[in-house]
């Protein structure tokens, strides 16, 4: 530990005594305890700093953990995290000479970086087990963007401390400070209510947000990226996940930089399921549902934002209820590696080993009838039975009027039933049209009929 290395060294002691005399007059923000027991008195006393930290469930032993201290100021929290054994990165938007002085005096190994919150990315600073985000949120012009950046570099838990405008009873709003309305300081932008601060943390992508305290217009929130452990003895059946698709394109690809949502379709026999009982997960990260809608009977739809920080490539979605085990997994892609669905070439048919699939229903995804009007978001939803235990969308060939159409997604409905979605081709003539499909190892099914009745101009 750095403190032990420096303690007892007479040269270091002399240096510290000089610095204490010099720095005590400088107006430090955090007080800093030196290894010899001397304290540089800052605006905030050591007791107050300890008390604030103790309000959060931060482990006493942080050996082997990476910790980020955002808005480190003169660095008390950074040095405390280092004392607990963590590898620490401290970040501030402007450089404090006091931080560097304390760093030298303590013989600290903390990595000190000058970056804005919006510049924090997995590429620029890496990922952290724990992130301290104390006293920064209300200084940001885009508070939710800042929290998204924090969430994207947090692997486990972020501890958020902020100015708030109420004691927790006010509705979910934030005040906007155009100039120096708050405390005469020009760098305060938003003052959230306690409820709003918690909602912002959840919306940023944290799975669980717990309010630790509210006092003197400050709130402490513990924000976790993972759900609690599933029950050892599930009291409810696990849901069956049909699909997880981009709300704009109905495709399995999504672009984290865009304002897209993931629609999750699933079956659950739990009656009266509510949003707060749903545990959706993408890879190991929990993702709270923004809305949960009962479609009919046991069929449900939940909409969510993809958690920030997912790398390009495949990711697995699964879900459970608070009282159930996990469902099957469904793969989605962060854009960048595979071409969009429409241009993904179907594989060549192989040896015919399987019987033809049986189409039992073809519907318009908007209306659940077999009539299509040419509206956008009209998907051809083709439900069929096939005996093959595993299928993916490249292994299903779907044709409309004998012309192959891309399968935008394929989902396992359970019990040998599948659903393949496609779109109508452009320039379709009004009237009846045929839909049929095969797998790579089967011959074509019998055709099912749909009807195209484009909406006409008045």
């Amino acid at each position, binding site marked *: 530990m750095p403190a032990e290395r420096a303690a007892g060294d007479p040269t270091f002691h002399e240096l510290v005594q000089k610095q204490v005399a010099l720095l005590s007059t400088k107006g430090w923000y955090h007080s800093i305890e030196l290894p010899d027991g001397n304290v540089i008195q800052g605006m905030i006393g050591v007791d107050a700093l300890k008390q604030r930290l103790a309000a959060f469930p931060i482990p006493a032993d942080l050996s082997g953990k990476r910790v980020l201290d955002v808005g480190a100021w003169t660095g008390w929290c950074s040095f405390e995290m280092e004392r607990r054994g963590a590898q620490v990165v401290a970040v501030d938007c*402007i450089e404090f000479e006091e931080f560097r002085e304390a760093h030298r005096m303590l013989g600290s190994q903390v990595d000190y970086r000058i970056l*804005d919150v919006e510049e924090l990315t997995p590429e620029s600073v890496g990922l952290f087990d724990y992130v301290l985000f104390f006293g920064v949120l209300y200084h940001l*012009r*885009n508070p*939710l*963007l800042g929290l998204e950046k924090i969430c994207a570099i947090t692997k486990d838990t972020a501890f958020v401390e902020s100015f708030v405008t109420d004691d927790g009873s006010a*509705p*979910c*709003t*934030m*005040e*906007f*400070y*155009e*100039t*120096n309305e708050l405390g005469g300081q*020009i760098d305060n*932008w*938003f003052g*959230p209510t306690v409820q*709003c601060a918690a*909602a*912002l943390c*959840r*919306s940023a992508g944290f799975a669980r947000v717990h309010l630790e305290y509210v006092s003197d217009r400050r709130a402490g929130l513990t924000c976790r990226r993972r759900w609690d452990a599933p029950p050892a003895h599930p009291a409810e059946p696990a849901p069956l996940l049909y699909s997880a698709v981009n*709300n*704009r*394109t109905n495709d399995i690809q999504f672009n984290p*930089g*865009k*304002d897209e*949502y993931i*629609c999750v379709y699933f079956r659950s026999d739990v009656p009266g399921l509510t*949003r707060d009982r749903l545990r959706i997960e993408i890879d190991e990260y929990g993702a709270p549902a*923004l*809305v949960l*809608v*009962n*479609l*009919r009977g046991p069929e449900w*739809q939940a*909409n969510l934002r993809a958690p920030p920080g997912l790398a390009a490539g495949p990711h697995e979605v699964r879900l459970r209820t608070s009282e159930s085990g996990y469902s099957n997994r469904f793969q989605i892609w962060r854009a960048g590696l595979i071409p969009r669905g429409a241009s993904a070439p179907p594989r060549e048919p192989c040896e015919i080993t399987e019987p033809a699939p049986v189409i039992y229903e073809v519907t318009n*995804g*908007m*209306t*659940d009838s077999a009539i299509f*009007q*040419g*509206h*956008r*978001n009209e998907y051809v939803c083709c439900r069929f039975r096939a005996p093959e235990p595993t299928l993916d969308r490249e292994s299903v060939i779907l044709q409309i009027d004998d012309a192959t159409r891309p399968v935008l997604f394929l989902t396992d409905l359970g019990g040998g039933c599948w659903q393949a979605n496609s779109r109508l081709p452009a320039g379709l003539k009004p009237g009846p049209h045929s839909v049929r499909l095969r797998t790579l190892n089967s011959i074509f099914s019998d055709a099912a009929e749909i009807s195209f009745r484009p*909406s006409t*101009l*008045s």
Partner: protein
Amino acid sequence: MAFMGEMEAAVGLPPSTADPDRRNLEELARLGGYHSIELPDGHVIPGFHSVEDSRRRLAQFPVPSDLRGKRALDIGAWDGWFTFELERRGAQVMAVDSTPIERFRTARELLGSRAEYRIEDVCRLSPAQIGTFDLVMFLGVLYHLKHPMLALEKVCELSTDMVCVESFVTDDGSDPTAKPVMEFYETDELCGQFDNWVGPNTACLLAMCRSAGFARVQLESVLDHRAHVTCYRHWPEIEGPQDSAAPYLTSVENAATRGREFSGVHDDYVSIWFKSSRAGLTAADVFPRVGPYGSHPVYLRNTGEDGWQVNCKLPPGLAPGWHAATVRTTGSSWGNSVRIGVDISAAERRQRPAQAEASGIRIAIATDGKTWERNLVHTGLGSCISLWVSGLPEEAARDGVAVWLDGDDLPCVFLSEPDPQGLRQINAMLPTGAQPGDCSVSASFRGTLSAPVPVRLA
């Protein structure tokens, strides 16, 4: 409430779900579109909003009836009524939406429109990608965004003159002194639609528009919880007689670093020090300008007698390079200008503009303005340089004289009469945050420049 009828956000949920306003969704599905569109032959493609609705909405803004030669951008174009109307008025129009709307393409074809159509999220638009626009329409989009300030800054950056902002607001706009507050919608609290994120009150919407970097912001109307705000990038032309003397700028600094360097990427503010013969100035009397754009004062203080300091945001969208900062007051013409470098390299910052040298102006002595040390200036608060020069024309007065410190021009704050040796004293203020190091200093008068002399900044 009236906004319950707005179906902009309906794309994520199929109409068969338990939407609270299912009737409107069904009506939208039946009509097939959002805007009604008039065809040249008199036919109307029916939409959720009548042509009269759209006309009334546009009429809330002072959009000129003749837009020939102008470039216009329609963000959130939907079926394109505003796009096609601006085109009809003569503008070259680009329409942008977050998802492709088939009806836009159909209507464009039927109308023979040449409007360019792009699919992009507003926060990903940039001048580098799509250029800049005389007129930007930003209607019905703001409250769908998670980062409203970021979006307004992007919109400001894309505009060179005027932006029409229309947004849902939580009040009726009747109290202009209301505290600026914004509701935050974590899920589907607003109209059961999950992609509504924020609901500002009218005061908050106006404050956010101002903070985005516009010179001035005008509330036009609030109708049925929709506020119409016109944002301008320029100050109005000076009206009436110019009854005040132009202000005289003495120094310009980056409000945070106190140097002369500025970044178009960060949220930088400009501090301008000036002298004004007009007593009792208020923020409403002061009109700062950087490059072509006005920027409203966020802070004004009297620094003693006729001295003032005004802070404003560095206007978004300035190209990298040198820009002139200046200011005028109510009833005055523009003051002298001081150049600032935006996103330029250290090497570029040392370069003076091409000016005729060997004009006969010669620096005899260069000293610190307080200690009279030769060829040395102490930096920091109140840092000042004094030159004794020969060869200034007899008619030379303070207002045409400046000191160049490498590439930074420092206005003359004092010019003496010639002493017995014919030397005149020039005093100028250094930026408080000027970095120590070696530099070269010249005196200039109306575009002619003395030979440089070396000066060390300490």
